[in-house]
Structure formats: structure tokens, C-alpha cells
């Protein structure tokens, strides 16, 4: 490793936001011809560190050396001219422009789309990308958009490439394709940094891992010489068990019965097409699928937030009585005596109010209680205190606005409130998205506790490994259709992955 030249060297880089220290005296080397996985829990400062390299933030202290020379990166333009390119978690593309137009957007010099298209084709051939330069972005799938982002960076001559959680939105097959491209780029001598939470990806892709913990650089290891367990322990700072519990369901009974559900969104596009399934009490029903395949609409339809075109959703109580949920709003569903809890995907945009403090957020579900026109903040305050204590929420106090908490703590507040009402049905959408390992396991535990208490849990997830470990049954959605329902204990990742891309699964060539 010593023989390789460091493309980037960070020395004593520090960045603070107000009183929060995001990075503290970080020393990190990035080598050419190597894929470096940057590991760390949420809030450990990975993205901040990389944003300083790509010119989005400016370090408070420290030096950055590019190819051995000290440089000052003041803007993304500076970063590009030094050959540093970053692919962000949230794509920065103009929907109504074509791929080629997006790629040359903001570049100086004469506009020559033809030459640009040729150069793009050249880049694609060299590394094995598949992208049509003349297609509009809005016509593209998530993985195609990501390809455009990567090509955009390469087009600008980047030889230091940073990817922030690139696989969060990809299917296993797409991920493998991306990894092959990245390996090609590494073999071409480029330096690649990938930020990820997924251990198996680190193992299969990276040459070296560097670990950050609470803004500080902990150390690095050659991937081949280490294990997932060792890396996790290093990230967290103490050892953790990596197995998700899956207790056997006790006395499962049908609780939610969905029949022939068809949903169109506001634009008239079919988001759910003839979906039927049953969720049992005391079981976890996992929902797998590429994002945007109807998961959101399905949960919102059950929760009374999404009108449906056809079909029915019945709630079955302990005596076997059926009650129709469709066509009722959340208030009416609650009035029927159905305690349905919902942890939506958009935590701060739907489940919580970011600018309100913990007490006021606890009150969202209960503010109508009491006969007076005034709100009672006593009970919500107690609930907030209980949630903070029981779920170990890290917060300066219960009067802190929830948007100031980290992702994991926000989710604990939300889940804590939702399970406080002793639900019979618990709907969760991407419950651990963006959460670090510790927080994720807290959430898995809470969900399993609910399952053991006889709650029917619907768990929409994106990490197949987790879905396969936690679910009793897995329903796979593909383009709004039920691609299949499989047993979580007997199926495997490949089968589910195939079903995600094609109704019923099977090879594309079939």
C-alpha cells in the first residue's frame, strides 16, 4: 500500500456547525486505484468530510493535499478542477433536460452537444455504463439517473470519485451492475470513495475501509483482512450482536385483509393494481420492492390517507368481525376503536412536526382529548419523558424541536409515540432508513416486541438482508402488482430480488 501515491490526504481537518463538532482533526488518505469504503454511524461525519472535499463546506481547520500539493477548495468548481467529483445521495439533475444536457450543464466553453454526446458514449464504453444521452431525465429509473450522475462527474474529468450511499435506491441486480462499473474505474487508476451502511457491500466491493466515529477518525483496515463484526465493533466502539431476532408467531389470526385493492395517484397513474393479502396478528409481514412500486400508497390506504379506486380493506377484530377501513379517514378509523399506528417514510414531513418540541409532537395523536377548547400538555409531557427514558433518546431536553435531533433519535420519538397507544396494527415504512446500526437494532427490537404482543406488523423495507431476517412473510411488490408472497424463513435474496424486477420472478430472458 505504501508504494501507491495518495491522491488525497486530509490532515487535521476540523469542521463544526455551531456547537456540534462534525469532524475533529481527521487524517485520511485516499489512494489511486483503490476503492475505499468510508464507514461510520449516522452523524459520525462521513458526509460532512466528503462535502469538504467536494467544495460544499469549507473546513474550519486543517489542510487538504491533492496529489501531494496543498490545495484550498472553496467551491464545487474548485473541486472539479482538482478532479474531485461527488455523487450525492439526492440526485441533482434537471428533470426536463436530457442526460447529455444535464451532463454538460454549467460547463464553460462553447455548447457542442454532438461532441459531448460522443464523449459521453466514449466514457460509457470504457467503463460499461448503459445510458442514452438523448433521453430525458423524467423518463429514467432511479438507477439510470444515478448513472447519469456518475457519468456527469467523469465527464468533468474526475479521477477522485465520491459516492454517498449509492445503493440505497437500487435493487440487488442494479447494485451488482454498479459495483462492476466501479471496479472497472478502479482498475483504470481512479480513486473511489463509497459511503455506505451495508456491511456486505463493503465486503464485496471495497479494498480498504476507513472508520469514523463521532467525527473522529478511528482507523483503517484492509477489507480482506477483516470481518463485518470487527468493522461494526470499530464503528460503534463496543461489540454488538448482528443477528436480528425472529421469534415464532404465537397464535396468528387474520387482522387486516386487503382484497383487490387498486389505487390511482393524483395524476391518474395506477400505483396499486389488484393487490390482495392478509396480515396476521403476531406476525411481521415484510413488503419488498423497488422504491416507488406502491409501498407508500399501500400503507397510506390502510391508514386512511389514500382513497382507492376499487377493492376493500377489512379490519378483523378478536371476535372475527370484519370492519371496512377503506373510505374512512384516520379519525373515523380511530373512532371505530381500531388502534392503528403508522410510522411513515417521511418522518419529519408526515409523522412529526420538525419545528415543534417533543411534547407537542407527542400531542399530535392525543390533542383532541378533554372536553375544553384548550389543550392539555401534561399527559404528552409525561409521554415524552417516558419515551426519552425508555428508548434512550439523545436530546438536550423535551423542549428541543425534533428537527434538531439526529435521524435515529427522531425515529425513536416517532416509533415511541406510535407504540405508546398500544396498537393492534403497526405499519412501518423504511423504519431504519438512514439510521446507524445501534439505532436500527433498537427499532428492530421495538418492532419485535410489538409482534410478540400480538400486533400485526407491516414492515416496508429496502434492505433485503434485513427483510429476510425479520419477516415471517414477505410480500413482493413490482410496479404496483403483487409479484408474490413468500415465507421469510425459507426464501432467499436472489428469489426476492428477481420478484422485485419482474412479476412472479424468473429470469429476464424468459
Amino acid at each position, binding site marked *: 500500500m505504501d508504494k501507491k501515491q495518495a491522491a488525497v490526504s486530509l490532515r487535521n481537518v476540523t469542521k463544526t456547525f455551531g456547537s456540534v463538532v462534525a469532524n475533529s482533526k481527521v487524517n485520511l488518505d485516499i489512494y489511486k486505484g483503490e476503492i475505499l469504503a468510508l464507514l461510520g454511524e449516522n452523524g459520525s461525519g462521513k458526509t460532512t468530510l466528503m462535502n469538504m472535499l467536494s467544495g460544499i463546506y469549507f473546513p474550519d481547520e486543517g489542510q487538504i493535499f491533492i496529489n501531494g500539493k496543498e490545495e484550498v477548495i*472553496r467551491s464545487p468548481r474548485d473541486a472539479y478542477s482538482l478532479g474531485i467529483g461527488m455523487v450525492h445521495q439526492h440526485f441533482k439533475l434537471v428533470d426536463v433536460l436530457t442526460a447529455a444536457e444535464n451532463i454538460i450543464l454549467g460547463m464553460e466553453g462553447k455548447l457542442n452537444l454532438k461532441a459531448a454526446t460522443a464523449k459521453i458514449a466514449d466514457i460509457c464504453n470504457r467503463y460499461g455504463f448503459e445510458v442514452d444521452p438523448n433521453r430525458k431525465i423524467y423518463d429514467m429509473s432511479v438507477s439510470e439517473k444515478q448513472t447519469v450522475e456518475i457519468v456527469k462527474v467523469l465527464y468533468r474529468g474526475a479521477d477522485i470519485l465520491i459516492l454517498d450511499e449509492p445503493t440505497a435506491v437500487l435493487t440487488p441486480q442494479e447494485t451488482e451492475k454498479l459495483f462492476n462499473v466501479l471496479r472497472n474505474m478502479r482498475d483504470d487508476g481512479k480513486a473511489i470513495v463509497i459511503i455506505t451502511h451495508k456491511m456486505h457491500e463493503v465486503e464485496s466491493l471495497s479494498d480498504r475501509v476507513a472508520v469514523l466515529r463521532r467525527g473522529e477518525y478511528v482507523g483503517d483496515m484492509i477489507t480482506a483482512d477483516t470481518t463485518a463484526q470487527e468493522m461494526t465493533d470499530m464503528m460503534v466502539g463496543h461489540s454488538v450482536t448482528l443477528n436480528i431476532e425472529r421469534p415464532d408467531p404465537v397464535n396468528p389470526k387474520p387482522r387486516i385483509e386487503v382484497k383487490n385493492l387498486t389505487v390511482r395517484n393524483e395524476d391518474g397513474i395506477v400505483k396499486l393494481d389488484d393487490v390482495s393479502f392478509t396480515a396476521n396478528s403476531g406476525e411481521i409481514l415484510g413488503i419488498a420492492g423497488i422504491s416507488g412500486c406502491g409501498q407508500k400508497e399501500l400503507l397510506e390506504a390502510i*391508514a386512511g390517507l389514500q382513497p382507492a379506486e376499487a377493492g376493500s380493506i377489512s379490519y378483523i377484530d378478536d371476535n372475527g368481525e370484519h370492519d371496512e377501513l377503506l373510505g374512512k379517514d384516520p379519525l373515523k378509523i380511530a373512532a371505530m376503536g381500531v388502534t392503528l399506528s403508522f410510522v411513515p417514510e417521511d418522518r419529519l414531513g408526515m409523522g412529526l412536526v420538525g419545528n415543534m418540541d417533543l411534547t407537542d409532537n407527542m400531542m399530535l395523536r392525543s390533542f383532541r382529548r378533554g372536553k375544553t377548547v384548550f389543550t392539555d400538555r401534561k399527559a404528552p409531557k409525561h409521554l415524552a419523558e417516558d419515551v426519552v427514558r425508555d428508548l434512550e433518546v439523545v436530546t438536550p431536553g423535551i423542549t428541543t424541536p425534533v428537527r434538531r435531533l439526529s435521524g435515529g433519535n427522531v425515529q425513536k420519538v416517532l416509533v415511541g409515540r406510535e407504540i405508546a397507544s398500544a396498537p393492534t396494527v403497526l405499519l412501518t415504512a423504511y423504519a431504519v432508513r438512514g439510521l446507524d446500526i445501534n439505532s436500527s437494532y433498537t427499532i428492530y427490537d421495538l418492532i419485535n416486541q410489538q409482534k410478540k404482543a400480538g400486533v400485526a406488523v407491516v414492515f416496508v423495507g429496502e434492505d433485503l438482508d434485513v427483510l429476510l431476517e425479520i419477516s415471517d412473510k414477505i410480500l413482493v411488490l413490482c410496479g404496483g402488482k403483487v409479484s408474490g408472497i413468500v415465507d421469510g424463513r425459507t426464501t432467499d435474496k436472489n428469489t426476492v430480488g428477481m420478484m422485485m424486477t419482474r412479476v412472479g420472478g424468473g429470469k429476464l430472458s424468459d
Partner: protein
Amino acid sequence: MTNQDKVKEPLFHIVKRDAIPARKAWGIRALAILLALVVCAIITAVLTKDNPLSIYATIFKGAFGSARKTWVTFQDLSILLIISLALTPAFKMKFWNIGGEGQVLIGGLAAAACMIQLAGKMNNVMIIICMIVTSILAGAFWGFVPAFFKAKWNTNETLATLMMNYIATQLVAFYTVRWEVPKGSGKIGIINQSSELGWLPQIGNKYLLSIIVAVIVTTGMYIYLNYSKHGYEIAVVGESENTARYVGMKVKKVIIRTMLLSGGLCGLAGLLLVGGINHTVTTTIAGGQGFTAVMVSWLAKFNPLTMVFTSFLIVFLGRGAGEISTRFGLNHSFSDILTGIILFFIIGCEFFIYYKINFRKSNKKEEEK
């Protein structure tokens, strides 16, 4: 730093602050006002050759120079405060009601209509009750229309409320011609000057009524927004409609209800202007306060208690500015310039409350230490 070579660090960079202690925030605001006064003084000295200090003294005298002036200042403050409070629930809901002007006007027109049309048909008490009811209802209706369209078809409330202002102004213009006294004068004049029918009762003196109403509305609005279920719903809808729907709030109902309140309170301000203060109605009776109130409400961050101070500041500056233009024989625009400078500093200083600027030099000094 040892290497003095051409490493170009930017001169400064802007960093978002963490929460800033309240005392420091108020310090920044006080400093901003002080700086504004200094800049005003320089400009005054350069442009008019007058002594800036005597100008400031005149501003103060304009607002508090005599007992009458002081009362008028507080009366003006009350009206502006009521209109600002009226807009606040809508703003908290992120419903940009810039139709305060029209809602006040239409409330005033309704009051005037009662005074003119009902005089001689019923006794004074009945007329005043009719005025109260109709002016509040008229204002509420002016708030309801944009709210209904917003709730039903998601139309842009900023445009709708703004356009409603012109409709109100034109209606007042129409009825001014209809009811003009004497014929051909183009104005209504003092209504029921001899009988004083429909004149709101004086409490103590003729200024106190508006002040008492303002105190009641301020307290009420503070409690309503902070402690009532409605106030909580307004806050949630304003922050995130999705969250509101998620917990089963009827977003459309909340929007319409809040705008009825907002418009109704503006109508009340119109009633006070027509029935209590001016005893007539003109197209300019609201005097742009429906727009000034937007600024008052924002400056106070939608807190009814802070709004007392922000509306005081605006009224104080306005009345002082009026005084200097007459006293020093200056153009009225000059006082507007001073008001503008002061407001610029007050609003601009909010930037420094949320962000701080790190200079290159100070960074290096820290490193050397």
C-alpha cells in the same frame, strides 16, 4: 501556519449558528437599531444640514409631544396591532393573507352602511349591534372567499387575497359616490354628525375604546394560538399539511375557519376606524395598514406579545417621521427614507442572528494561539 505561499483562503465564510442565547439575539437587535440611528444621522446631516439630534428629538416629540399626541400614538398602535394580530393565525398556518387592507375596508364599509341606512329606523344601541355584526361578518366573508378557493382547488391565496383588496377599494369608491354628502363633493363626510347615531361609545376619552379592544384581542390571540386546540391545529397545518392529515385533522376546515377569524378581526378593525375614530369611510381609510401589518407580524415572529413592540416601533417611526416633515419643512419622502433605513437594519440583523461570519484573519489568529 508556516507555509505563506499562494494558498488562497476565502476572505470570510458564512456559518450557520446553533441556537443563539436570547440575550445575545436581543443585543444584536439593539445594536442594529443603534447602527440604523447612526446611519440616519449621517444621511440627515449630509442631505439637510440639520442637526440629527434635533431631528431625533422631533421624532420623539411627534409621537409623545403632548397628551393628545400620545393618545393618538396609542390609538394608531392599537389599530395596527389588531390588524397584525388578525393576520397572524393565517400566517402561522402559512396562508399568506395579504388582504388585510381589503378585509379592513369592507368591514368599515359595512359599518358605514349600517350607520347611513339604519339611522332613524332603529335606536342607537340596535344600530351599533348591527354594525358590530355586519362589519365582522363582512371581513370574515372577505377572508372566506380566498380560503374556500384555496381549500377547494388549491388556488394561490396570495393572489386571491391581494385581488380582494381591489374589489373592496372599488366597492368603497362606488358607495362613496352613492352616499356622498353634499351631492357632487365626492366624499361621504362625517356620518350622522348631529345625531351621532352609530358612533361607538366613548370610554373615558375618545381614544381608549380602540386601546381596550386591542388589549383584549392581544390577550385572546395569545391564548388562542398557544393554548387552544384550534391554535395547535393551525400550527400543525402550517408546518406540514401531511402531518395534519396523518393525525386526522381536517385541513380544509382549519384553513377556512382560520381565515374566517383572520378576516373577521380585520373587519373589527374596520369597525373601529369607521364607527369609533373617523365616523366616515374613504377608500384610504385603512391607510396601507393591511400591508404594514404583514411586516409587524413577521417582525414579531408571529408572537402576539412581541407584536405589541413591533407595532409600537412602526407607529412611533411613522408619527415621528410625519412630524419632522412638517417641522423642518422637509419633503415627506425624507421621513420615509429614515423609516426605510431603520427597518432595513432591523430586518437585516436577523441574518446575523441565524448566521455568523468567520473571517480569515481571525481564523489564523486562533491557530497561532
